[in-house]
């Protein structure tokens, strides 16, 4: 299993989640986060914003679905401007459903 953490623009989050639902990945967790990227925030006029609001979308899927999820997120979160976000993929060893206690997704 893999955990995919996508940090995207807040306004793109719903587009991404709807796209994932269409592709068959309904389960996800959404977290509001603040962060900065390679460009160290942005400067608007004379004000410098060091940390910008972003939304982190967390999805856990089977190994074979990783490419598809990444493709959907990349397509739906893309604007072509600086600040579109990053996607991180990490390994999940085990998953349990609390209600049933059953191992697996």
């Amino acid at each position: 299993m893999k955990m995919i953490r996508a940090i995207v623009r807040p306004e793109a989050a719903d587009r991404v989640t709807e796209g994932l639902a269409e592709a068959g990945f309904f389960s996800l967790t959404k977290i509001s986060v603040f962060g900065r990227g390679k460009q160290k925030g942005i400067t608007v006029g004379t004000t410098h914003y060091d940390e910008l609001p972003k939304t982190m979308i967390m999805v856990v899927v089977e190994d074979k679905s990783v490419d598809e999820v990444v493709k959907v997120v990349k397509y739906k979160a893309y604007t072509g401007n600086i600040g579109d976000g990053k996607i991180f993929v990490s390994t999940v060893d085990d998953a349990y459903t609390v209600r049933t206690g059953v191992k697996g997704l």
Partner: protein
Amino acid sequence: MKEVIAIIRPKKVEPTKDALEKLGFPSVTAVQVLGRGRQRGIAGEVSIDIRPELLAKGKSAGMKYIPKRLITIVVPDSEVDSVVSTIIKINQTAQIGDGKIFISSIDDAIRVRTNEEGESAIM
């Protein structure tokens, strides 16, 4: 070391923390999150009164997101099973929406104050 990520009902955070403390793991990180599971969000899930006409409208599509708490706790490999079974025992309500638990590996942990590394940093 393993990281146990549990996404549970907001109301169950306190009992879960108490149970984990009894087990010897007082340290947790909790984050407010929004999410949905395999059932795509159920309108009856939140414990507030929703107007019947809204509920009838929402039933077909479901709610977009349901408020949850994400609890992260880093434990030694040997304790993963007892922590997971405790979380499952406390959070079971037999209704849909009890949550999920994910377990992934942590390479290293460092206590900032003392520079301790590895398992002594998390105990």
